[in-house]
């Protein structure tokens, strides 16, 4: 009997020492849109995230990291299954990666219920910014309205009398035009919503032609942006009615596909290629070297999501059970590709928004150049309705 007790103590100690010798790993679930029309966005976020991990020697806050990747196919049901699997079977410590707001809204509650932090590298629905804000939600990119608020402000300063608005019919599309109208004070000729992932815009373009607006503002991310701009140019409207876009519809992914037609277009972004800080310079240079293409704002957001996790885990000394401290550490801010980044109590960033213009360089390369600053230290419009402190 005595022998047995000793044996058990010995085995117990051995288990304990094994646990000591093997430091805990951080498990990050990465659910993103990696196929279909939104694939360019998810792939950029993933590649940015992976580049940051490489720069951090595959560690987050000193702990070795394991990333589990799943493709949501831009389908809420598929995303729901992937998230459930990661929460219940893989027991991930953090989740990140989702691109589209309708998908995030379909899985958010399930994540928050398990008290797992969701670090959003893209989707920033207004729902999670106001009354329904959640302590387990941090967005490292922007609130959905923000880039559109910036363009609304810019189109306002250009004194266009009226504007035609176009967006897909889903939460981020509605947030987009709400944001634009918050700062644009002229007349809205029409506000047209179309099916998400629609690829033929002939009906909408005919409406624009008939309405004869002074300007058009369109929020069309991913493949929708590529198709809309191409078809807008093919209809001969690009020369007649100026088109203004958020950064989502005018970054390197869209420029690669549309080409020369993009030159001259103004757009807004929270991040630019030429932001002058060492983190951004290293990110841009190494992204180009590693993936052989120009990074987009999405890639910078993926990169920053990993940097945020790294800073927060470091701040709690690697103890992931300290949820309150982790949240405090995340909201305290970190050094991002956009310089020091701070957050509001609802988990959304307080940051600058820049004006960019697509230009053709003497060598022939078409790039997006920063030409001004629209907002400095801008907050989202919903934060006052959030009860979190």
């Amino acid at each position, binding site marked *: 009997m005595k022998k047995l007790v000793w044996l058990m103590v010995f085995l117990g100690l051995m288990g304990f020492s094994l646990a000591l010798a093997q430091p805990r790993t951080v498990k990050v679930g990465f659910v993103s849109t*990696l*196929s*279909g*029309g939104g*694939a*360019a966005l998810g*792939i950029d976020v993933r590649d940015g995230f992976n580049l940051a991990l490489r720069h951090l020697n595959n560690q987050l806050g000193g702990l070795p990291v394991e990333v589990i990747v799943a493709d949501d196919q831009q389908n809420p049901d598929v995303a729901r299954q992937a998230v459930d699997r990661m929460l219940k079977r893989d027991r991930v410590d953090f989740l990140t990666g989702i691109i589209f707001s309708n998908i995030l809204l379909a899985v958010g509650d399930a994540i928050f219920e398990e008290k797992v932090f969701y670090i959003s590298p893209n989707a920033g629905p207004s729902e999670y910014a106001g009354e329904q804000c959640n302590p387990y939600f941090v967005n490292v990119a922007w609130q959905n309205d923000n880039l559109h608020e910036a363009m609304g402000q810019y189109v306002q300063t250009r004194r266009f009398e009226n504007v035609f608005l176009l967006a897909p*019919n889903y939460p981020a599309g509605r947030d987009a035009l709400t944001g634009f109208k918050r700062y644009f004070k002229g007349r809205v000729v029409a*506000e*047209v*919503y*179309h*099916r998400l992932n629609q*690829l*033929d815009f*002939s*009906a*909408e373009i*005919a*409406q624009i*032609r*008939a309405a004869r607006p002074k300007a058009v503002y369109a929020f069309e991310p991913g*493949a929708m942006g*590529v*198709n809309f701009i*191409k*078809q807008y*140019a*093919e*209809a*001969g409207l690009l020369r007649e009615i100026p088109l203004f876009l958020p950064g989502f519809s005018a970054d390197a992914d869209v420029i690669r*596909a549309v080409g020369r037609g993009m030159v001259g277009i103004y757009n807004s972004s929270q991040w630019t290629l030429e932001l002058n800080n060492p983190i951004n310079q290293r990110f841009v240079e190494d992204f180009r070297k590693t993936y052989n293409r120009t990074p987009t704002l999405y890639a910078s957001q993926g990169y920053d999501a990993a940097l945020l996790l790294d800073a927060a885990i470091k701040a709690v000394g690697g103890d992931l059970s300290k949820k309150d401290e982790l949240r405090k550490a995340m909201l305290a801010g970190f050094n991002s590709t956009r310089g020091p980044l701070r957050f509001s109590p609802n988990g959304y960033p307080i940051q600058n928004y820049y004006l960019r213009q697509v230009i053709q360089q003497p060598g022939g390369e078409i790039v997006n150049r920063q030409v001004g600053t629209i907002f400095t230290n801008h907050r989202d419009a919903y934060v006052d309705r959030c009860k979190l402190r």
Partner: protein
Amino acid sequence: MPPSLFIEQVLNGFQFGLMLFLLAAGLTLVLGIMDTINLAHGSLYMIGAYLTATLVGVTGSFWLAVLGAVLGTALIGMLLELSVLRQLYRRDHLSQVLATFALILIINEVVRMIWGSQPLLLSTPEALSGPVEILPGLYYPAFRLVIIGVGLLVALLLFWLVNRTRVGMWLRAGASNREMAQAMGVPIKPLFTLLFGVGAGLCAIAGAFLGPILAVQIGMGESILILAFVVIVIGGIGSIKGALVGALLVGLVDTAGRAFLPLLLSRVASPEVASNLGPALASILIYLLMAVVLFFRPQGLFPART
């Protein structure tokens, strides 16, 4: 409403409808004559688009690429018929649905393996990438005009083939009574293979011309296949005329719904309600159309069998 807007939307509806017709024509013949449900029809459309995009890169010419893609897809279609579909003719519809659904999944994965999961880039030919003034003050994209022209041409050819040739006579005979046609000595086996090849070729034409407007990506066939089924149900299974009328109806109703419904709603309801309700109603409009047609004519508008 300005007349130019109306004309432009009608052209848009025609353009979309004619491309749907190319898909529906093959589908309705296969379903009407061979009595076989082929869900993988959309996959042939996808293969056509992928082949076009690849061949444009190789040959540098859009038109050569279309020709190559049509021939290639027709060949793939005939191989599919010889290897898989031939085994299914005597089975019930459930087995056919299951087997051809499996084909969709297999073809999607094969395409993913060959071309990757990112959409391919297929641009409109440079010469056709601008607008054309069709009426004073009314501009329309040149490429879409070409699509309308190609669609009409293929429709005419098909009508000639079905109504004026011996093969067409066999086809019509097979569609109205297969057993009788077989008894009268119609060579049914090679006819089916040929028919399947023609259907695949038509899919490839649609894929090649819609590719630059939509996107060349995995799954592009499934979404349009549903519309093609709606078309043949409205038009009447087995009837080319029905497919043409059904396709134009669906094209026009879909475009009109997207273009005019929100406008109409905003007159009677608040902008908030209109912008919420408009897109939702527009996307169910063609299914409403189908329900109405089925209610009054359960066989479709022009049934092949009476």
